[in-house]
Structures are given as structure tokens and as C-alpha cells.
């Protein structure tokens, strides 16, 4: 049977402009290409600017993960300047990160993902009618509640940062705020509201404590059957419908998973260094290789970018971000054999292409590596093995599973603040190289900064979506989403909802990816300047 080419532009509901091409044979995708179609040039813009410019500019790379960019930008300068960061400030930064992610999970699930469950493809499913009732855009009962309730956690962010999105309250040496008792108690009240109005009654159908008892796949299935509240909560309902419509059957991906780790510990990272970071973060970093069933330690020197199939003119070698000399290609025509995306192909030096995101974080959380006091949670890894590997369904579940743990971490931060202690220790500016990483809601995010003569010489960002949505690399290996698309069924080429499911399960954020890298000389780009 002939191969049918399907170009989907735009895929939509991933942030930014994602286009996908899939080749279809016998109703199955046999090859796939993902491309990012926007170039803004942030790293070019940052060149020559104030060292702290990244604190203002990089949150604007992405309005969805602004706090994550701010976190990375701050820790990058902290390591470059050799600052001291007081424990209150570490907690306050973590808190910002936590609530941003807690906000993001329901918005992702309802606004971006679950509305596809109302697609006409599923009209014969016994769950369809209920799915439309709950998940229809704007009018669904759960949709409306989730959109309005998810605005709550970031109110807590605003108490510390003044607003969300796009505050720059984190700075090298600490944070700008000095909250009072009323900010803390009000913040606590806001989170309680979120828990008692959405997280427990609507999402889980049980208390956080009951949910936390779930340690294995069997525990989860037992929980599901235990009470109609569990089976009919949005989680329970989604789980059952997902299995009915086969979301556990496709969308696997590359089978290797990365997280650099995040949430520095308030007592262990007050003198931040690049080398000291791994042992100092609460949520440990690592790679999970599902082919060997092994966990590996990581550090940023393993990161590589390749532009063989990206619209840059930088040769075909793998380079570390510090060594990028990025040159955007002037003419960006689509050439699926050659260059076809603004995203670069990112890989781990020894272990290759990786998926990042919640599934990656949770598979790494199930490893026995790391420090004794770091976070451990074996549930998703257990499900991964017992369900026969990754799928859209598990990826989605892993994301929502994090909400409870992050909620607990928020409570811990609120408890740990010592209001009369410092929030900021003024650093001395100096030249040097820095690296800051964190986990945005959608995965591993890192900034690399080089300060020379009091200004930015080089600023590089690798966002989660750069990992996931990247094109083929120098060895023609497909990117993670491209890989996840191969083998999926396409029931109706005029309604390729399956492609949407896969892209959305990665929660891709193209606006992140399309960072422009650094040009060899700032001047070369000046000729593109508008008058």
C-alpha cells in the first residue's frame, strides 16, 4: 500500500507553533518529523547586556514556565558569582517553582489534553457522554472548575513575587521579597482552598493521606475499586476511559529518560557551586535507561546539541552549550532530508536522545541512586514495568501524580520559613561561567551563562521542549516525539487526533524551544535589524 503523507500545521494546544509531518501506511504512522516554526532570538538579544538581564529576559522566553526560567537564571548567576543564598531565599525560590508547576498540571490536563477525549472518534466508548459532560472546552463541569481553581496556587506566587507570570523576584544572592506572617498564613489558606476545592474532591476523590498510601500498581488498582468516589473522581474516570480507548497502547518514545534534579535543599546549597548541586537537590537527578533497567547519575557536562537537521549553520558535530556558536540559517525552507526545524537535537553524551518531563522525573524518582535524604517514589517505575513500558496514558498519569507530592513540599516550605532571618545577601559581581538548572513542569531546563568584562558574553538555554521536540540528530536518530509518533494508529486522516494526543502528552512548549542561539558575532545579525 502506498505511503500517505500527512502535514499537520498547526498541531495546536502545544504552546507555540508545532507542525508535524507523518507518513502513514495501512493506517499506521511509519515515519514522523516534528518542526518548530518560530525564531525570536533571545540569546542573540542577551549578548552584551547586563549580567542580570537574563532575570528579566528569560522568563519571557516562555510565559508558562517563567518561574522555571527565572530559577535557572538565578542559580546560573549564583554559581558564576559565587554567592551565598540564605535558606529563606532557597525556600522562597522553590515555592515559586512548586506553585507554578502545581498550577500547570490541571491546566495542562483539562485545557490542553482532556478536551480531546470529547473527539468524535470516541463516540462509541461507554465513557464518551460523561467525558463530554466533564471535559468539553469551556462548558465542561470539570473544565470550568479546573481553569478557575488552577489560578489559585499562583496567588501564592504573587505574594512572594508580586505577580505571576513574569515576576523577576529571584536574584543572585536571594530573593527581593521579605514576606510577613500574613503573607505566609494567607498563602497557606490559598493552598488549602486549592486542596479542598479541587485536588481532593474533584481530582482524587479521596484525602491526600489515602492517596499517598499507593505505592505499587496493585495498590493503585485496589484504590480504584475501593470506592465509587475513587472510580468516579476525574483521575479514576480518566484512568478507566483511557484504558477503554487504548491510550495505554501507543506513544512510547525513546525509552531513555532524564532529569537534572531540582529543588535545592535550604541547608545544603547556601554556597551554590555547579559541582555541589547534584547532592544538594531534594528531587534527585538522573537518567533512567529502560533498555538496561539502570539508573545513571548526571551532570551538565553530558549535554550536547546537534544542528545537522536544524536551521543553523554550525556543522554537524555535537557540541556542549558553552561551545555553541549558533548561526541561524537565513533561508529556512523545509527539507525533511536536511534541515526542517528551529529546534536543535539535544542528547546525553553517552546515552543519546532522552525524553524529559514528568514521566522522566518519576522514573528517576524510582531509582535507588542518590543521597539517602533525597526524594524516592517507586510507583510510576512499577507501573511502567507492569504495563509494558511507556504510553500516552502513563505519561499523563505521571504528570498528575506529582501534584500531591509538590503540594506537600509547599506545606514544608511554608513551615520552614524563619521570618526574621535574611532573604537576600548582597553578592559581589564578577566574571565567570555559571550553570543553573531546574525542572519546569514540562521537563529539564538549564541555563548556561558566561560573564566577561561585566557583561554577558554568551547565554544558552536548553528548554524541556528542545529535548522532546528536537529533530533528527547527526546520526539521523529521530527526536523523542518523532519516535513516539512512529507506530501510532491514524484512524481517520481528516481527524488525526492521535497525533494531537502524543504531542500533548509531552506537553510541549514550542515557545521555549525557539530560543535563538548565540551568533558568532553579534554584528552578523545586525543586518537583519529593522529600521
Amino acid at each position, binding site marked *: 500500500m502506498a505511503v500517505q503523507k500527512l502535514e499537520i*500545521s498547526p498541531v495546536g494546544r502545544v504552546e507555540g507553533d508545532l507542525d508535524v509531518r507523518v507518513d502513514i501506511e495501512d493506517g499506521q504512522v511509519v515515519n514522523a518529523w516534528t518542526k518548530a516554526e518560530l525564531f*525570536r532570538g533571545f540569546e542573540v538579544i542577551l549578548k552584551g547586556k547586563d549580567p542580570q538581564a537574563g532575570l528579566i529576559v528569560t522568563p519571557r522566553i516562555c510565559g508558562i514556565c517563567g518561574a522555571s526560567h527565572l530559577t535557572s537564571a538565578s542559580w546560573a548567576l549564583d554559581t558564576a558569582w559565587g554567592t551565598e543564598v540564605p535558606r529563606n531565599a532557597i525556600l522562597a525560590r522553590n515555592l515559586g517553582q512548586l506553585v507554578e508547576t502545581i498550577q500547570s498540571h490541571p491546566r495542562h490536563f483539562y485545557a490542553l489534553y482532556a478536551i480531546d477525549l470529547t473527539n468524535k472518534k470516541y463516540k462509541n466508548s461507554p465513557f464518551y457522554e460523561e467525558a463530554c459532560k466533564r471535559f468539553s472546552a469551556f462548558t465542561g463541569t470539570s473544565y470550568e472548575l479546573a*481553569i478557575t481553581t488552577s489560578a489559585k496556587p499562583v496567588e501564592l506566587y504573587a505574594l512572594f513575587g508580586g505577580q505571576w507570570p513574569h515576576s523577576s523576584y529571584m536574584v543572585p544572592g536571594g530573593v527581593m521579597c521579605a514576606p510577613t506572617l500574613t503573607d505566609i498564613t494567607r498563602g497557606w489558606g490559598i493552598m488549602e482552598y486549592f486542596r479542598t476545592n479541587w485536588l481532593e474532591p474533584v481530582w482524587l476523590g479521596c484525602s491526600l493521606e489515602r492517596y499517598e498510601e499507593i505505592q505499587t500498581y496493585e495498590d493503585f488498582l485496589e484504590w480504584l475499586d475501593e470506592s465509587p468516589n475513587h472510580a468516579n473522581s476525574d483521575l479514576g474516570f480518566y484512568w478507566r476511559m483511557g484504558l477503554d480507548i487504548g491510550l495505554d497502547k501507543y506513544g512510547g518514545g525513546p525509552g531513555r529518560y532524564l532529569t537534572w534534579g531540582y529543588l535545592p535543599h535550604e541547608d545544603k546549597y547556601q554556597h551554590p557551586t555547579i559541582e555541589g548541586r547534584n547532592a544538594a537537590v531534594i528531587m534527585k537527578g538522573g537518567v533512567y535507561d529502560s533498555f538496561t533497567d539502570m539508573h545513571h547519575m548526571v551532570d551538565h557536562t553530558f549535554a550536547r546539541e546537534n544542528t545537522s537537521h536544524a536551521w543553523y549553520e554550525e556543522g554537524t558535530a555535537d557540541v556542549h552549550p558553552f561551545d555553541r556558536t549558533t548561526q541561524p540559517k537565513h533561508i529556512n525552507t523545509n527539507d525533511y532530508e536536511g534541515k526542517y526545524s528551529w529546534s536543535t537535537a539535544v542528547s546525553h553524551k553517552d546515552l543519546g536522545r532522552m525524553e524529559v518531563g514528568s514521566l522522566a522525573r518519576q522514573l528517576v524518582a524510582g531509582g535507588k541512586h542518590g543521597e539517602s535524604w533525597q526524594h524516592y517514589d517507586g510507583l510510576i517505575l512499577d507501573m511502567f514495568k507492569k504495563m509494558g513500558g511507556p504510553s500516552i496514558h502513563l505519561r499523563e498519569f505521571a504528570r498528575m501524580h506529582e501534584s500531591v507530592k509538590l503540594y506537600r513540599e509547599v506545606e514544608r516550605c511554608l513551615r520552614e520559613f524563619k521570618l526574621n532571618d535574611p532573604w537576600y545577601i548582597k553578592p559581589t559581581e564578577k566574571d565567570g561561567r555559571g550553570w543553573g538548572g531546574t525542572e519546569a513542569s514540562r521537563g529539564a531546563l538549564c541555563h548556561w551563562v558566561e560573564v566577561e568584562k561585566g557583561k554577558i558574553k554568551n547565554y544558552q538555554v536548553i528548554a524541556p521542549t528542545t529535548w522532546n521536540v528536537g529533530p533528527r540528530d547527526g546520526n539521523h536518530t529521530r527526536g523523542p516525539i518523532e519516535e513516539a509518533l512512529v507506530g501510532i494508529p491514524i484512524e481517520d486522516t481528516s481527524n488525526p487526533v492521535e497525533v494531537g494526543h502524543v504531542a500533548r502528552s509531552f506537553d510541549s512548549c514550542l515557545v521555549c524551544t525557539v530560543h535563538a542561539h548565540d551568533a558568532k558575532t553579534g554584528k552578523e545579525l545586525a543586518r537583519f535589524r*529593522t529600521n
Partner: protein
Amino acid sequence: MANVLWLQGGACSGNTISFLNAEEPTVVDLITDFGINVLWHPSLGLQLGDEVQQLLHDCVNGKVPVDILVYEGSVVNAPNGTGEWNRFAGRPMKDWLTELSKIAGFVVAVGDCATYGGIPAMEPNPSESLGVQFLKRNKGGFLGADYVSQAGLPVINIPGCPSHPDWISQILVAVATGRVGDLTLDEFHRPQTFFRSFTQTGCTRNMHFSYKATTQDFGQRTGCLFYDMGCRGPMTHSSCNRILWNRVSSKTRAGMPCLGCTEPEFPFHDLKPGTVFKTQTVMGVPKELPAGINKKDYALMTVVSKDASPSWAGEDFFTV
């Protein structure tokens, strides 16, 4: 019923995400209570691929009316004015904008990028970005100085990086409920109801401003951020301290200097070395003074205020 089509050019999605935080009214209220029909939105729209392209063609051909075209993000023109560095639905986004702007009842630019070009248009502007009807202070932008939409209005600009959600949702309601006649726009086409007063209006540090008590460093509850930390509150038109962010606070309340993000010059001084979070001064006097005051009067006021400064002005009265 009003059809809204929302597109993103050189955007970070920040205005969309901010919009989802709207409370009065909420995004859902807009649709269920105010009869707004979202034809398509990049984050919220149901359709993908060909379906979106078909819808856009139907809009351009007048088959589907577009009452309000909301544009978020800068208009990317690179390389060399072709717009190929930002393609959407199979062609340069700027070409869609050209066509859709001809049939739209109203065009609303949300956020700084759409209003003035924003961060992408910062020097050296690698993406050749423009705002929809301005570039920085200069009228013209992508659609030209003379552009008016079908309803006879120029582009309504709702600046901010990002825009405050209630600024967006309330303007959409004003348009959808036929109150657009009450809208007065300033020289940058900003609705005056939000952008006549200053960021400083309502700031909890205002008393410290009056008595010239400075915030010496970050992480302090007290003092004003104007004197040392580069706060632009007294010369920025915004309602950030009247219509609070996320219902609870504002940058300056929390201790972050206002960056002046509703003004065309944002980011100020192009973030050149030494300009970030630092007040630019000449012999100890701020280079940029609060709106409407001259140097001489400012100096006079400084002497008087310092003399009159009460003892609490230097203390932390937002106690733990």
C-alpha cells in the same frame, strides 16, 4: 454574540496564560455569560491542521465573521521582511495578519510584543519584530499609522509584559457588550481606564516615597524602590496597584521594582550593563524623575521631605 479569533506571533504565551487567571470576569464567564465565541485559540482551540487552515480561509473570505481579532506576540518579519521565521498554518504569520486585519471588526493587541514589539524587538532585533501598530514609541508598526479596523478604530493596545488578565477580559466584555463607545484611548492606543494612573498609585511603599526613605537592598519590607533600586512606578502608566495581580499583590508591594512594562521603552536602557535594578543617577539625583515634576522642584521637595521625615519612615512597620 461576538466571534473572537486569537493568534500568536512572536509570543511567549504569557498573555494567554495570564488571561487564564482572570477573575472578573473569568475566561469561562466570557464564553458562557457574555456570549463570546472563541473561533480558535492556539492553546484552547479544538481543531488542528487543515481544519484550522480552512477556518482561517473562511474568515478571510468573509464566510465566518471575525468580530474581534486578538493578536499576541510581535509580528515577525525576518528574514528580510519575508516573515518566514514565523510560519503558521503553512505560511508566514504576518500574511495571515495582513488579511485578517482587513476583515476584523476590532483588532486588539495584547501584551508588549503585540503593542510595541516588546522583548523580541529589543536591540539587535534578530527576528525583525514589530508591534501591530507601533514599534516602540513610533506609530506605524506592522499595519501602518492609518490602519483602522472595520469598526473604524485603530488597534486597541493592551500593553504589559504580560497584560493583566482583567485588563484583557474587561476590554473584551466592553467590546462584546457594546460599550466600546466609552473607551478612550491615549496616544499609544491604550485604554485610559487602565493606563491613565501610575503604577505608583496605590503602592504600599508610597509613604516611604513621600519621605524619601529608600529601600537599601532587596529582601526588605520597607522603603521606596525609586531612589536606589530603579523602580519606574512614578513614571509608568498602569493600574498594577489598583487592580492587583492575581488578586493579591503587585511587584512593588512584594519588593520588586516596577520595570515600566506598560511603556514603549520597556525594557528600559536595553538592559545595558549597570542599568538593571539600579536607579540611574547624575550626582545623586535620579536621571528620570516622576512624571510632571522638574529638577528644581524635585530638589526642593527632597530637602523638605527629608526634614519632615518621621521616625517610622526608616523602620520596618510591616512587621513579621
